[in-house]
């Protein structure tokens, strides 16, 4: 939300034009009034608060389901920038801009082949530029961000990004560089276990000509060392980790259809209150299916407990199984606490709104939606806080 003060003064010869001085965040509007002979200078001072969210995910950028759910919670739909490069990775909605960190590759595909590094390697990314631009956007300055074209593998001409209310940086290294990490107001790490990753990649790539089980396996294995060395360690810095594991409800399941998803929430993060089940800080195991609710195989199982994760205090909410029907969803929602919903049933509504998205019937969709609501809550608290601080400073 922008706080603006408008001043009107007399002006000399002027026509329609707009200048902005980025350092003082002032906008000068010169307008000629056709009705009257007086001409006005309108000076508008705006200060916009931008919050920065980091999302570490291995699955490519921007168009991922998590992003779509997140932007949907804030309202409005995120689209690629109009009239720009059609292969742009950026998504823009009224409140949110999602930037793909692949755009900060310092080496394009050919450069990486030459240098024999993967995209996961920090040597292939320009962290200085990433830091400068995220800092600029956070302080309300527009930037010319490069575009990494995933189709051609080259770096295209930069595009202009305006500072949004909510900036989401999604990619492989949002928390890798310490300076960028300090700019983040909230960070999320999407941790997919190896078995699930393999199952998902099989589903994604088997339809592709040329791929076979061996090539998919080889691809995952080859990237594993770099992944474990550079990407995985970011887990410890995340405020929320969504862990996706194979289900424990079906013995020897290797299809990856039923999932066990754990939402690991760091305690003591400002403006972030973890979701809990029944009683905060206690250990609960809950199977909602029974007399009041009938579920089909394999059912649903919830777990909630406090834990320690990389020497941090965390609360872990876990869901194993999948939803079959709407009333299962609403039943579960009514028993969870601290969801940061604005009305009863908001989580269910959001899940149903995107029922065709992958993960809509299991913990991935549920926890992604909940994290989205938490981020909205964090944003509103931050804005309210800054507004009161400004009001106090003025008084």
């Amino acid at each position: 939300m922008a706080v603006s003060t408008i001043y009107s003064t007399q002006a000399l010869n002027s026509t329609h034009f707009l200048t902005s001085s980025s350092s003082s965040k002032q906008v000068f509007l010169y307008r000629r009034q056709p009705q009257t002979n007086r001409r006005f200078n309108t000076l508008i001072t705006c200060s916009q608060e931008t919050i920065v969210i980091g999302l570490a995910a291995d699955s490519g950028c921007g168009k991922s389901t998590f992003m779509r759910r997140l932007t949907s919670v804030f309202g409005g739909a995120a689209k690629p920038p109009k009239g720009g490069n059609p292969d742009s990775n950026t998504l823009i909605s009224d409140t949110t801009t999602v930037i793909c960190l692949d755009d900060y590759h310092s080496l394009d595909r050919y450069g990486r082949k030459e240098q024999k590094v993967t995209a996961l390697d920090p040597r292939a990314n320009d962290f200085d530029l990433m830091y400068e631009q995220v800092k600029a956007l956070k302080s309300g300055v527009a930037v010319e961000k490069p575009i990494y074209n995933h189709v051609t593998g080259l770096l295209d001409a930069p595009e202009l990004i305006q500072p949004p209310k909510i900036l989401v940086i999604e990619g492989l290294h949002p928390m890798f560089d310490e300076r960028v990490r300090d700019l983040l107001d909230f960070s999320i790490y999407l941790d997919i276990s190896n078995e699930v990753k393999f199952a998902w990649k099989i589903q994604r790539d088997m339809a592709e000509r040329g791929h076979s089980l061996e090539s998919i396996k080889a691809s995952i294995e080859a990237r594993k060392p770099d992944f474990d060395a550079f990407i995985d360690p970011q887990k410890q810095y995340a405020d929320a980790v969504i862990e996706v594991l194979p289900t424990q409800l079906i013995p020897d399941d290797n299809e990856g259809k039923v999932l066990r998803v754990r939402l690991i929430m760091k305690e003591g993060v400002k403006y972030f209150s973890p979701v809990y089940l029944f009683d905060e800080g206690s250990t609960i195991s809950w199977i909602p299916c029974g007399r009041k609710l009938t579920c089909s195989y394999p059912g649903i199982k919830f777990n909630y407990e406090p834990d320690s994760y990389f020497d941090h205090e965390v609360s872990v909410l876990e869901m194993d199984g999948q939803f079959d029907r709407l009333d299962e969803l609403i039943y579960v929602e009514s028993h969870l606490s601290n969801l940061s919903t604005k009305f009863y049933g908001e989580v269910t509504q959001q899940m149903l709104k995107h029922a065709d998205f992958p993960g809509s019937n299991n913990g991935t969709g549920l926890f992604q939606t909940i994290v989205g609501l938490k981020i909205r809550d964090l944003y509103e608290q931050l804005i309210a806080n800054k507004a009161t601080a400004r009001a106090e400073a003025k008084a």
Partner: protein
Amino acid sequence: MTTIAASGLSVATPRVVVVPTVRVSAPVRLNYPWKLGSMNRMVVVVKATSEGGISDKVEKSIQEAKETCADDPVSGECVAAWDEVEELSAAASHARDKKKAGGSDPLEEYCNDNPETDECRTYDN
């Protein structure tokens, strides 16, 4: 004034200066003579990447990766080659999803992504 303006145009305000952006040898006949000053030509550049192109790239990259890795499975080249395969596979899958979603009706495609906009609202009763 220019020759075009001399053909009897009545200009709204006397201070408008018509600068012709197009020099024509023959007399220009327009339906809207007052729009002369804004005769801009919009050039639309359509970058269409065919889905077949990406699939071919994926296939080629897999073959290359297999060849590179046949010599030395742990070298940097091998790892970089498989990383390229992964990147291209992801791009191919995105392209496939986009094609599947947007093939039929542009309105459908837009409404899938933005169900709350005015054009896409549905009323059940």
